[in-house]
């Protein structure tokens, strides 16, 4: 018998710079921060510690001094497990893969309750040094890195191609950042909450042309915990929960670029993952009430919203500028503020998407609440959306 998986609780640290420098006398350390988030998430879930049988971690950044972090935390939380205690790594998709591994332990009957959790601390390492790592993750070390490609340089090339093919304007693309900041202003855990105008976005210094500072993610630290459970456990609590209705994954077998020329900005992995998730959930894109997309840059939100079928191809930027993807619009996207404003502690970023959807689908999103939200989609990705994971989630009760 296939068991249904539910999200029954979630918590996330406000995204900002938390990490202390190595020489600081008083340190802010990952395990203490994450432990408190776990307690908060379990209180939100109303679940029994004794039912937790799996701990699936997003692997911390290399700057986290404590190694074998998962097994260290099993001790710190004093949590014997019969399912799994494991760390997972998959670039930007890391937390979505951790979520899936936790869900699989429930599907396999190995856990009634499983935690998908992690902490991403990185801001004590300057951006120029951090990029020495990240350029090796988002490129071929011998055939891309020698030229100086940075992680977001690939997204910038998506933007250039999109403008070239669809005649979209810079202002239309930049409207995504304005919209996301407006959403973040309503989100207490967002990193950047001060409202900005279109002129502000367009006036920023270029980072990777044509994208400026406000169209790329700030660096941030974060920690989050998602409590997953067998749906029977979720139902027995007598409180609203979120059911995992569908899941799709696709890796196009390419790393940053496809060596056989293709339509790079179609985000084929996102499109195929979405089709699979919608099929498993027996829904179509038109049924989705809101979406929390993994989109580090403005252009990527546009391309992912098109690939998931939420807006028509080539019209994503314009539709955003017209308010269609804003709170109160036809299909609100990234009500958390998205990666540009909610923040992007990369290894745990998809956890923050599940956290937002959990709040929305259980009617607890406060000023950000999407009225009558029942079905939501999330996406996560790695590379230049060379791989994508899409979930369809449903509010119950």
């Amino acid at each position, binding site marked *: 018998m296939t068991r249904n998986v539910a999200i029954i609780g979630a918590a996330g640290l406000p995204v900002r710079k938390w990490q202390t420098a190595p020489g600081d006398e008083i340190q802010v350390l990952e395990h203490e921060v994450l432990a408190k988030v776990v307690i908060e998430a379990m209180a939100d879930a109303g679940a029994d510690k004794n039912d937790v049988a799996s701990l699936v971690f997003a692997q911390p950044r290399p700057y986290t001094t404590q190694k074998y972090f998962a097994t260290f935390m099993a001790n710190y939380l004093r949590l014997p497990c019969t399912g799994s205690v494991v760390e997972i790594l998959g670039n930007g998709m890391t937390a979505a893969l951790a979520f899936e591994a936790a869900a699989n332990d429930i599907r396999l009957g190995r856990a009634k309750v499983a935690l998908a959790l992690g902490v991403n601390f990185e801001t004590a390492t300057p951006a120029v040094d951090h*990029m020495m790592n990240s350029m090796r993750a988002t490129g071929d070390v*011998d055939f891309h890195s020698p030229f*100086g490609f*940075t992680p977001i340089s690939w997204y910038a*090339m998506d933007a250039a191609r999109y403008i070239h093919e669809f005649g979209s304007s810079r202002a239309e693309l930049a409207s995504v950042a304005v919209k996301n900041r407006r959403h973040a202003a309503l989100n207490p855990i967002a990193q950047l909450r001060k409202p900005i105008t279109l002129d502000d976005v367009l006036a920023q210094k*270029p980072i990777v042309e044509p994208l400026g500072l406000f169209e790329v993610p700030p660096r941030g630290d974060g920690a989050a915990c998602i409590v997953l459970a067998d749906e029977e456990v979720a139902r027995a609590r007598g409180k609203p929960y979120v059911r995992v209705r569908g899941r799709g994954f696709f890796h196009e077998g390419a790393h940053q670029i496809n060596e056989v020329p293709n339509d790079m900005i179609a985000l084929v992995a996102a499109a195929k993952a979405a089709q699979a998730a919608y099929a498993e959930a027996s829904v179509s894109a038109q049924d989705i009430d809101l979406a929390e997309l993994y989109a580090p840059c403005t252009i990527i939100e546009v391309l992912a919203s098109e690939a998931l079928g939420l807006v028509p191809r080539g019209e994503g930027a314009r539709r955003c500028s017209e308010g269609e993807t804003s709170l109160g619009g036809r299909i609100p996207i990234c009500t958390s503020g998205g990666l540009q404003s909610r923040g992007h502690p990369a290894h745990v970023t998809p956890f923050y998407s599940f956290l937002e959807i959990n709040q929305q689908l259980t009617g607890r999103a406060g000023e950000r609440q999407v009225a009558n939200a029942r079905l939501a989609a999330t996406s996560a990705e790695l590379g230049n959306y060379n791989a994508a994971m899409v979930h369809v989630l449903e509010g119950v009760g």
Partner: protein
Amino acid sequence: MLPRLDIDRTRAYPPRVTAFTQTFWSGLQNGEFATTRCDACDKLAFPPKPICPHCWSTRLTWTPLSGLGRLYSQTVVHAGPTVFASEIPYRVGIVDLDEGVRLATRIIADTEPALDAAVEIVTLAYRDGPLFAARVITP
């Protein structure tokens, strides 16, 4: 022969060379741009590989490339890793070669190039070894 530009400094982040890829890099130093073609399925790979990524055959032949193609996309990097600090800002892009191969490299252009512009691969001869780049062909 590829056009050659001499650059009087060392590479910021040199590629590693294997017994297999040294054919590519030493050829590039001599103005040749080549990759592997599969003897079994006839498809090209880029970067060159000791296996065919398409059919997994291990029978391959080094094949010269024209070095001619089109600029698929490009950007200018204003915030880059430590090793490239002295080169910022620099222009990079994606090129589709006429043979049906996509690659990523530095772009040489005086002004912002139009996408789909014709480009040619050039050898960048640094003091410590070669890299390649794509130069926009001005009509």
